């Protein structure tokens, strides 16, 4: 039972990890990837319950990761945790199948609300 956190910033991965713990998801194993390419491999081999991904990353962006998962037919809940929360990006994310886009900065309450109905706390 795992959550894959994808962000090129080690600091941000720590922040997301901490917020997940505070939001009641401490029982999940937190896997990490530093870009979309690495995350794609992790999803193929480890099959996490959900992917929480940054948008803007080197090598492969979060949006490209979501597109790659779609083209491979991988059905896995996917949410963006990103510094950009414009309407345009929210629309692009939703059209590509993302379940939510959480803009940074965020609180543990916000991550809890975003995951509500997608992933059971544990």
């Amino acid at each position: 039972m795992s959550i894959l956190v994808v962000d090129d910033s080690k600091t941000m991965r720590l922040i997301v990890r901490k917020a997940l713990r505070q939001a009641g998801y401490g029982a999940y194993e937190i896997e990490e990837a530093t870009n979309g390419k690495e995350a794609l491999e992790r999803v193929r081999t480890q099959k996490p319950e959900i992917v929480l991904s940054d948008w803007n990353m080197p090598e492969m962006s979060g949006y490209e990761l979501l597109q790659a998962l779609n083209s491979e037919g991988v059905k896995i809940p996917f949410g963006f945790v990103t510094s950009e929360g414009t309407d345009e990006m929210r629309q692009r994310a939703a059209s590509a199948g993302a379940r939510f886009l959480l803009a940074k900065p965020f609180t543990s309450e916000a991550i809890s609300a975003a995951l509500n109905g997608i992933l059971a706390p544990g």
Partner: protein
Amino acid sequence: MTIEADRIRRLAEDVLSVTVGLPLRASAGDAWKGKDTFLTGMVDITGNWSGVVAVHCTVEMARALVSCLCQIEVHAVTNDDIGDTLCELANILGGNVKALLPGPCSLSLPSTDLNGKIADEGPGTKVWLEYAGEPLLVNIVSNAEKASFREKGSVSS
């Protein structure tokens, strides 16, 4: 287009208080006196508005930020930790500034300068904050402001 300093101040205080959790307060900029090396995290915005969003601070402030964010002792903070944290803060601020701008823009990947200088008289919308006597500056400067500043400098020199 110039973004109002008050709006930037509120945004910077919100971002830093939610992300970092340090009680930063507004500063007149006095805490800068006598400090000559600053660390910088920055991100470029290009499109309808083009410019740079930068976060500048002293080593001591950067160590406090990383220590608080990553929950590690101040003495254990590395330069890599500092670079990563300043990049991420610039990235979050940049994303939030971008949301205030009209029209389509894109955000670059963030970068750092760990041996930079700050010029008080430089262009941009500046927000000065401090924590425990250590300064942090958020500066948002458009390419147009930079060009105008350079032009004035060349005329007066």
